[in-house]
């Protein structure tokens, strides 16, 4: 038994080394020559031609130096990984919402990205006045909840502050006719989270999870808790909390939580995604530019009913890779 285990560990490490080398090589070849003097971004993302690339960040709107520092890291990473748009998880503006606040807490901070035509798609948090839906750079098009399609991915921005009948009906109607390969939902409150301050929003989960499962939502991105957390897949769905874009709640992830696959609550962070066919790569980067989590989610099938053994390949911060396979069948909720 011991020998078998040792052999497995060796195989995993060698596989990891191979992948890391591949990624490093790819990143180096793609990094522009005139990159900033600071340490070059280290990508674990494959940078495939024609792939869909985006970022996700939440709870940003503080206007503080640390928010700006993280935004600068995003800019640096974009030089190596030209992402097209950014999903905002809400709490886009803390405190007052005068015109100068939009500037100080958003447009000044992300000026470089905005100037380079990076689009932001926002959702409303519990600190956001709903009238933000009309602010052009948030691209909400006057709507509290909306759907956008990018390549083979459909994105659903939901207003988790106010999940009323109209929104639930709209979501079900949209999901039921959605034939996209990937369905990504994002909202402010997390259906799953290990935060001591807030934690899982079970009320929201009770309403949304059956729809997510029934209609094959693959990934759910949220904020509200001010840290990064990758949740162990729940009913075949990958939940992420990425709520440390401007505020940090240090040490707030419950260490005993059975939900956590990977957590990072010691600095601000953002996420990068790359969708290549039926694979969605992700990388999580801290304010200091370090990779704190990365991996790839496989979308094995187009419909939930046929999805029985989803796989995720994960690279953790110390570059140890491992493969997780769910042998158990996913039970259908409906």
């Amino acid at each position, binding site marked *: 038994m011991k020998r078998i285990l040792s052999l497995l560990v060796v195989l995993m490490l060698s596989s990891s080394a191979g992948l890391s080398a591949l990624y490093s090589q790819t990143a180096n070849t793609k990094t522009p020559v005139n990159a900033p003097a600071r340490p070059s971004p280290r990508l674990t993302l494959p940078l495939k031609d024609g792939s869909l690339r985006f970022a996700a960040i939440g709870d940003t709107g503080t206007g503080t130096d640390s928010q700006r520092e993280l935004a600068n890291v995003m800019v640096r990473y974009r030089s190596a990984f030209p992402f097209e748009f950014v999903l905002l998880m809400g709490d886009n503006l803390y405190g007052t*919402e005068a*015109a100068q606040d939009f500037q100080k807490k958003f447009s000044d901070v992300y000026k470089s990205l905005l100037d380079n035509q990076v689009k932001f798609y926002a959702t409303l948090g*519990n600190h956001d006045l709903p009238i933000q839906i*009309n602010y052009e750079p948030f691209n*909400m098009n006057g709507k509290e909840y909306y759907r956008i399609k990018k390549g083979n991915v459909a994105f659903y921005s939901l207003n988790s502050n106010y*999940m009323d009948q*109209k929104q*639930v009906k709209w979501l079900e109607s949209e999901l039921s006719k959605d034939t996209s390969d990937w369905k990504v939902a994002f909202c402010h409150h997390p259906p799953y989270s290990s935060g001591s301050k807030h934690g899982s929003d079970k009320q929201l989960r009770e*309403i949304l999870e059956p729809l997510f499962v029934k209609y094959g939502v693959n990934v759910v991105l949220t904020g509200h808790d001010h840290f990064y957390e990758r949740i162990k897949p729940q009913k075949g769905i990958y939940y992420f909390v990425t709520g440390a874009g401007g505020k940090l709640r240090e040490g707030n992830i419950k260490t005993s939580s059975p939900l956590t696959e990977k957590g990072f609550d010691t600095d601000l962070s953002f996420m990068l995604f790359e969708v290549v066919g039926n694979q969605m790569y992700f990388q999580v980067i801290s304010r200091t530019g370090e990779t704190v989590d990365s991996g790839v989610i496989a979308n094995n099938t187009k419909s939930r009913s046929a999805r029985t053994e989803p796989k995720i390949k994960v690279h953790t911060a110390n570059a140890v890779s491992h493969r997780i396979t769910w042998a158990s069948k996913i039970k259908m909720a409906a």
Partner: protein
Amino acid sequence: MTWKTVNISMLVVCLFVTGWNSLGSTSQDAQKTDQQLSPADKQAINEFETRVKNYIKLRTEVRDKLPKLSKDSTAEQVETYRKSFEEALRTARAGSKRGDIFNTAGSNYIRRTLKTELDRKDKAELRKIVFEAENKDIPLRVNYPYPEKKELTEMPATLLLTLPQLPKEVKYRFVGRNMLLVDRDNNLIIDYMTDALP
């Protein structure tokens, strides 16, 4: 077939039916409530909804006199619109007072509905969502804006689905145990009821 077999079969059928009904029961709750309303409750809700509609009518008249807010607005346009809408509506509703929209019978219906839901659900979880918001010191004043700096309580989704539905321009919002009606676009407190939550 023995009685024991029959009993086991019935138990299996009951468990199946119970399990099946529990799926998606939340989204059906409101519909069930509609069907099971007493005439008095129906009248109370109708009255409440009529008052909300009257508010929307007045609001629309006020809004139509303002420069239109585009969905592609700048920060300055958003701020200007919000403030001018707030001022114009406050003027139009001068003299409005608590209970103008939350009629007594409607408020009682809402209190009962919330209590029933809290008794059915995980009360601690619901109360955690409502009470964790840092907004308890907000002065409850009709026709005044909800303080801009204060966070907006998330309305627990399972509660929201059971309450009388509102047009998109008006939102329910908890402040402690009290419930407010707030205008979405100008943040004015339209009305409030005390002790909405048990």
